[in-house]
């Protein structure tokens, strides 16, 4: 399946989870295909809010993003987000990183809400239900689900079983499970049986579309080279 075909179902106003922590695990080719596809009014879930002028930053630059749900929008070169945010042209829901991960995990695991000690007693607890459980102050957090996930994998088999390279794993497995439609770019696609069942990180049940990107770009390298998309 081509990149363009893979992202073609993404509609205006969709919530889109994008894997990656910084550039590691960022599905740049899928994000660039989404820019070309042209869906607007998107809510994006990512740990960050883009760096430089490629990937998520380029998606924001294209004006397609209405809201970002993330833990840390202040990356080394966050001009795309920062400019729009300070001008009031993009919304931000700031979530502690572990709570963000747990909310996404809960979305995939069918847990509508959970109590967590993280952020209890802080400004980020404002408006949230608070409760002390076994002596620990907690706040109630709700699951996070998405219409689509864009995820970068290393190996995929044709059933959608995935592995990830090293710390590029980060948000991939939990985002695959939390989206109605999970779209994956894989460095290599193998036949069923090509991945040891004990080494599968994301079972194929979570994956709906796979596109082959044999030599994926690395965001850090592109940013260092001042690359711009498109």
């Amino acid at each position, binding site marked *: 399946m081509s990149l363009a075909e893979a992202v073609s179902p993404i509609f205006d106003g969709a919530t889109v989870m994008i894997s990656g922590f*910084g550039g590691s695990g960022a599905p740049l080719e899928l994000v660039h295909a989404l820019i070309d596809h042209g869906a607007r009014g998107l809510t994006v879930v990512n740990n960050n809010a883009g760096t430089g002028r490629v990937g998520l930053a380029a998606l924001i630059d294209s004006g397609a993003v209405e809201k970002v749900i993330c833990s840390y929008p202040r990356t080394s070169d966050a001009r795309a987000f920062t400019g729009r945010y300070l001008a009031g042209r993009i919304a*931000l829901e700031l979530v502690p990183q572990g*709570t963000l991960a*747990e909310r996404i995990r809960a979305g995939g695991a069918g847990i509508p809400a959970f109590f967590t000690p*993280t952020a209890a007693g802080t*400004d980020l607890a404002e408006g949230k239900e608070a409760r002390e459980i076994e002596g620990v102050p907690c706040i109630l957090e709700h699951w996070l689900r998405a219409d689509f996930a864009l995820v970068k994998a290393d190996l995929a088999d044709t059933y959608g079983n995935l592995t990830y390279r090293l710390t590029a794993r980060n948000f991939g497995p939990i985002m695959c499970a939390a989206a109605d439609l999970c779209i994956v770019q894989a460095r290599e696609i193998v036949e069923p049986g090509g991945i040891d069942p004990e080494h599968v990180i994301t079972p194929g049940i979570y994956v709906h579309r796979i596109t082959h990107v044999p030599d994926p770009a*690395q965001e850090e390298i592109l940013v260092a080279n001042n690359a711009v998309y498109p």
Partner: protein
Amino acid sequence: MSGDLSMALSRKQMAWRAAQDISDGAYVNLGIGLPTLCSGYLPKGRLVTFQSENGILGFGGPPPKGEEDYDLINASKGAITILPGASIVHHGDSFAMIRGGHIDIAVLGAFEVANNGDLANWSPGPGGVPGVGGAMDLASGARAVWVVTTHVTKSGAPKLVERCALPLTGAKVVKRVYTDLAVIDVTEAGFVLRELSPEVSVDRIREMTGAPLLLEGEPAPLKAPAGL
């Protein structure tokens, strides 16, 4: 550095001092910036496993220039190396590790620490773009939170206070503070001075501290190798 005190510890010396207290076998998360330096100053023979919240347990320093693999990074998004016995987990599992109380020590930076253990290190206050990252998860999840920080701000204001003025990262979480002038425990009774720079009097350090500084016997002299 704390004001004009020439005998204040350097950043590396502060990291060295904190590193001496990391026990053998500990699992440790080092915050971005100054705390990261601790990994270079562990006493010889001490086995410490570093966790980075993006999902790796058991990593080493940066690779030689030109050999960076940006699929192998730490929470600061810097390239690292992987050590034998390492493991990779996804973000959900990584923060389960942190939130679940499995990290023995988180060494963090701070804007302010209050004498009830409150920590403010994520937001410089209103305005600008906010960013919290994993700070709150580490502050509330680690078994022990240590802070490494200068004793006062660049303008000389105390960073150890009775009540944090800046937005909290976590309430009642800090156990110990390593500054460039002192080592201070956060106890039920408040700040207790454990070590003090030999150049600084108790009265002087109290002036530089925004909350009562208790003594339990004479503080030991704060020392670190010269030349760091």
